[in-house]
């Protein structure tokens, strides 16, 4: 049983760093509302887990808060229209993802009316079953707003009857102040959300953790908590010292309780659940107001912006819209980072939208965050080891990753790396350590998938072999039976003694027929008549020829640009051949159809 009091000692996690905080850039102004973007790009998948099933069509008019997807068979997390307007397209669009890939996205053209769909708040939690409450959270599209965006309903479902609910307001990464501002301005709602989460999880105690570099947020909470005598029994505020990455789930648990989450377990397994303050806020909105997750606070910061600050951004708002209203002055080789400088990722296109997990848009000038220099050789100085919050051996991991020794990486607990970037931050040789780890992790994951696939392939191969073997045996068995029948016939003939030519001939025919039937699996032989076959083959051959001609033509084109005429000729030839082929095909098809008609009639 974990019990935390306002005076129980705080603990330490190993390592950690103190990068320049840079928070004053954006946390001085209240959370704004920016003008609505002309087009919202709402990716159908904005969290970790499967996407929901699309339930709107192009051309549909949707209302603010209307679900665009529903959980479906994969039990995905829905996304909602962030404002009212028209769905003008559903197509691939650059994703808010470090890979720069595109993915299915709903294009929502706002009509400016901000017309809400009918909201269904829950007045009394106790009227609903636990399952219904979780269903409501899922339908409201609530995902963890702190990090990876894990669906909150599922996280909560796995954490029933826990000892401790930690509301994470640490926000340790430099620059990011979204939670800071939210805590300052909406402390009461966060506390309300925390209470709701406590009720849902039946947690015995709630601790709100805030880093000591956010005095205003601390003061706001203190005021709220002091005003409500009910909560003070089970809910306390703990101020933790500023050190990166104390906001990491595992590190925060260690700081508050001194416990470590065992490597292959979840915090819930040791009776702890951690939720971000933003999530608590979203839960409060979803339950008390029936509002789905359609907007969030985003930090807009960096010295390449003339108007940094924080803002409520409707999900799907493209980054370039936000940047342009914030006075973006890009330089050459400009970096735009989603997230903070320690763990954020650069994006390759400004078209990417804000999604549920986007807490910060950072557009630094080259001066404030110098671009990485050339990677130099590791001199085994051990600085990385000193700062690793997971007590790993970053430099050893780096050698192993470079050597692609994945077994060695597993032995050195690469999986426990939280990619906080502290090691790379202090590395004097500027080795992008985290990048090596990510690639190695991806490779290990890939190998695991491949291994599973190969196991399936093996089973299927073996099943097929077995089936073929079985079929062969069955065939042989039929042969044997046919032969026996023939023998019996002969024997019968012999037995009859006299030479009855008619009978004998009949028997012979019968035996032959039996043998034939046995030899040819009757079901398989659906031989088309000869002319049909011929046509088919002709068509196929023609097609193959056409393709060959086409290929050659293409080759010629590639090989020799100058021979444009020849090229054209070839193309024409190819086209002709293609046309012929198609005709032949059609003929064949028609013939076949006829044939089939004939057969069926």
């Amino acid at each position, binding site marked *: 049983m974990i019990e935390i009091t306002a005076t129980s000692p705080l603990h330490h996690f190993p390592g950690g760093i103190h990068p320049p905080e840079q928070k004053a850039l954006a946390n001085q102004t209240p959370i704004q509302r920016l003008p609505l973007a002309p087009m919202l790009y709402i990716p159908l998948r904005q969290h970790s887990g499967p996407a929901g099933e699309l339930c709107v069509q192009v051309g549909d008019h949707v209302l603010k808060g209307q679900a665009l997807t529903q959980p479906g068979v994969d039990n995905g997390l829905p996304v909602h229209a962030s404002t009212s307007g028209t769905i003008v397209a559903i197509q691939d669009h650059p994703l808010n993802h470090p890979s720069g890939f595109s993915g299915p996205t709903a294009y929502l053209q706002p009509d400016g009316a901000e017309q809400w769909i009918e909201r269904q708040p829950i007045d009394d939690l106790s009227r609903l079953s636990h399952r219904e409450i979780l269903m409501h959270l899922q339908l409201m599209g609530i995902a963890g707003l702190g990090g990876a965006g894990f669906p909150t309903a599922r996280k909560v479902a796995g954490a029933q009857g826990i000892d401790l609910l930690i509301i994470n307001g640490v926000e340790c990464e430099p620059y990011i102040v979204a939670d800071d501002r939210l805590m300052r301005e909406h402390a009461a709602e966060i506390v309300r959300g925390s209470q709701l989460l406590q009720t849902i999880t039946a947690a015995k105690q709630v601790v709100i953790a805030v880093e000591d570099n956010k005095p205003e947020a601390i003061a706001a909470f203190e005021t709220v908590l002091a005003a409500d005598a009910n909560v003070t029994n089970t809910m306390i505020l703990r101020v933790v010292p500023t050190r990166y990455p104390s906001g990491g789930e595992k590190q925060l648990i260690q700081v508050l309780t001194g416990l470590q989450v065992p490597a292959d377990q979840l915090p819930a397994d040791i009776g702890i659940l951690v939720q971000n303050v933003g999530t608590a806020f979203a839960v409060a909105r979803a339950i008390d107001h029936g509002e789905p997750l359609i907007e969030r606070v985003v930090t807009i910061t960096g010295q390449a912006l003339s108007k940094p600050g924080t803002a409520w951004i409707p999900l799907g708002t493209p980054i370039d819209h936000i940047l342009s209203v914030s006075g973006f002055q890009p330089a050459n080789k400009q970096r735009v980072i989603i997230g903070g400088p320690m763990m954020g990722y650069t994006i390759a296109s400004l078209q990417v939208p804000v999604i549920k997990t986007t807490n910060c848009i950072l557009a630094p000038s080259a001066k404030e965050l110098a671009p990485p220099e050339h990677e130099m050789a590791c001199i085994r100085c051990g600085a990385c080891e000193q700062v690793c919050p997971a007590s790993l051996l970053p430099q050893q991991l780096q050698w192993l990753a470079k050597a692609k020794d994945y077994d060695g990486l597993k032995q050195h607990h690469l999986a426990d790396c939280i990619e906080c970037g502290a090691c790379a931050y202090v590395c004097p040789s500027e080795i992008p350590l985290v990048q090596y780890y990510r690639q190695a992790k991806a490779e290990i994951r890939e190998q695991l998938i491949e291994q599973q696939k190969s196991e399936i392939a093996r089973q299927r191969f073996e099943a*097929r072999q077995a089936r073929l073997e079985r079929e062969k045996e069955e065939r042989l068995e039929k042969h044997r039976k046919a032969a026996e029948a023939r023998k019996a016939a002969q024997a019968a003939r012999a037995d009859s003694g006299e030479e009855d030519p008619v009978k004998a001939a009949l028997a012979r025919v019968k035996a032959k027929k039996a043998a034939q039937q046995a030899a040819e699996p009757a079901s398989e032989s659906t031989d088309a008549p000869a002319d049909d076959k011929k046509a088919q083959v002709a068509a196929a051959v023609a*097609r193959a020829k056409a393709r060959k001609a086409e290929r050659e033509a293409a080759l010629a084109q590639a090989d020799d640009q100058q021979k444009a005429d020849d090229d054209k000729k070839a193309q024409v030839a190819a086209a002709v051949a293609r046309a012929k082929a198609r005709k032949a095909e059609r003929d064949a098809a028609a013939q076949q159809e006829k044939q089939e008609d004939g057969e069926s009639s």
Partner: protein
Amino acid sequence: MSWLLGILALAVLALVAGLILGFAAIRFRVESDPIVEQIDNLLPQTQCGQCGYPGCRPYAEAIANGDEINKCPPGGQATIDKLADLLGREAKPLDAAHGEEDVKKVAVIREDECIGCTKCIQACPVDAILGAARQMHTVIADECTGCDLCVEPCPVDCIDMVAVAVKPERWKWNLDQIPIQDITASSEHSNSEDKQVQTQ
């Protein structure tokens, strides 16, 4: 006399040693390790036959009997290294005579061209092609091992080997392959043609 003694002593010694060894040979015989299983587990199970054996398991048996470990292009260098590790042999580069390491591919049937001959169905070692005679066939992409054994039998050449598209969640963090949007064209919605790749 001393030399006779020497001969005698050594002879007795050797006799005793021989007796002990004869005893040990029978008494401590161990059954051989199921090495074929272990090798087979390391092979990629594409069942492609590029090694010259009909399937992964026959190749595993051949390796156990001393064949080279570098004949499996789908497994590539990683598999060779693992085999070398398992068998205590030297890891060699992939034998180019058996093909080259390639990106992972799946077979895709151009369905409008398929004549429904079932030849590819018979050719598929893992039963990953669905269809019946004179019906259009299709490949179950998830089950396809990319062995390309179905390509050759197709009389109308309608099967393509297509590289598997990478999903974001299976992306391998190769940052230097990200196409960069030119910032001057950032206001346009259409994908600009002149993409520029900028790597760190």
